[in-house]
């Protein structure tokens, strides 16, 4: 059963071959409407395409538990003609840093190998510099919303530079035109600026255009090197967190006052 296989992958009990296919990451700040955007895309692409969604929410750094609530927004699952062509899985970040856990790569490739045409990864609500999704997805959609700061925010470096498509959601609210304007001006200074689409879940504005654009997105040349860089960083972090002594060393740092330098040395001396 597919769901059990994904658990085995998540728990490190099963290895996965690479499988070519479309993996799209939807990222953006918390509460901007990522889950609703995913729902709107699914309504339009399914059942012509078989789509899997990996919805990521954060793991508590205190308890190791997680509350996974992205599924609630997916009204498309209530449509019987469509829900058969959709698979939705909630994933916790577990020990990974950043907005998506590294294991997502294997989960996505396994889903593609199981006859899904497209895998959508919905990241944890992420801010300006969280670019880990670039390591896994071949297209990145950044969702923004109105009233998220002045024009200088759009000028700042970071995640926006890696976007293959920018969605300004909540266009029914005041201020969304100004956000589109700020972003257009800022990105207009680069050679291959990504398209910007204004959407509203409430009015339905822009959603058809979004789902058409998303299936024909082209990879921007300028972000290729940044993608490779994120892949390398993620692989390196994996080596660190999969070290069997990682948790015990963490305990000794917090409880016995083990110094950072000594902790690093121990991890290097006791590789997995």
């Amino acid at each position, binding site marked *: *059963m597919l*769901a*059990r296989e*994904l*658990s085995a992958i998540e728990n490190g009990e099963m290895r996965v071959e690479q499988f070519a296919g479309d993996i799209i990451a939807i990222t953006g700040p918390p509460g901007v409407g990522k889950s609703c955007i995913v729902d709107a895309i699914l309504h339009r692409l399914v059942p012509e395409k078989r789509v899997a969604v990996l919805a990521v929410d954060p*793991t*508590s750094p*205190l*308890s*190791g*538990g*997680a*509350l*996974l*609530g992205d*599924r*609630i927004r997916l009204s498309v*699952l*209530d449509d019987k003609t469509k*829900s058969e062509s959709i*698979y*939705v*899985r*909630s994933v*916790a970040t577990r020990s990974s840093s950043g907005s998506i856990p590294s294991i997502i790569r294997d989960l996505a490739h396994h889903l593609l190998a199981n006859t899904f045409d497209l895998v959508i990864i919905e990241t944890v609500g992420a801010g300006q510099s969280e670019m880990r999704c670039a390591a896994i997805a071949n297209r990145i959609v950044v969702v923004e919303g109105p009233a998220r700061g002045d024009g200088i925010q759009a000028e700042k470096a970071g995640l926006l530079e890696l976007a293959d498509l920018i969605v300004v959601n909540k266009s029914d609210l005041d201020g969304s035109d100004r956000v589109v304007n700020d972003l257009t001006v800022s990105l207009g200074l680069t050679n291959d600026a990504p398209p910007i689409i204004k959407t509203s879940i409430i009015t339905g504005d822009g959603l058809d255009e979004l789902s058409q654009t998303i299936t024909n997105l082209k990879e921007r040349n300028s972000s290729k090197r940044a993608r490779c860089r994120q892949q390398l960083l993620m692989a390196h972090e994996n080596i660190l967190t999969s070290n069997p002594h990682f948790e015990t060393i963490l*305990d000794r740092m917090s409880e016995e006052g083990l110094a950072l330098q000594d902790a690093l040395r121990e991890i290097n001396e006791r590789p997995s």
Partner: protein
Amino acid sequence: MGFVSISTPQALHRRYYTQPNMGGRQRIVIAKPGLDGHDRGAKVVARALRDGGHEVIYTGLRRTPEQIVRTVMDEDARFVGLSSLSGAHSHLFPKICNLLKESGLNDVVVFGGGIIPESDRPPLYSAGVRAIFGPGTPSTEILDFVNEASSKDCGVGSDTSWYWGE
């Protein structure tokens, strides 16, 4: 589910997550079946399980038995907690238990909570529900149940007649 008292996350963390032989991290669906808008109890239980180190998938309000079973299957959850304060538990809980068995999810552990009168409970236990938590249950008791049930063969399709607090 009913009203439960919450311990601090740190206290639960110490007690449950850092001790290795306590059953480990489980994936748990917390569901609100039927026409019932009272979700404070379900949210408190979801939060207590989260703070106990488990991964909790909350379904949201007014789900059908079919939607709940589909969620349990897709998410590969080992536990499903059903919360009902509408009085329809005697219809909804056994229906969900049967659908789980029909879908081959015999190893999923079902527990329930909310306003469930004592006299309604025996048929629910026979249907495969392994625990019922009423108002006033301490959240640590629910975590104790999850830990104990994790190491038992007490899925909804199991032959056991065991239930929590028998």
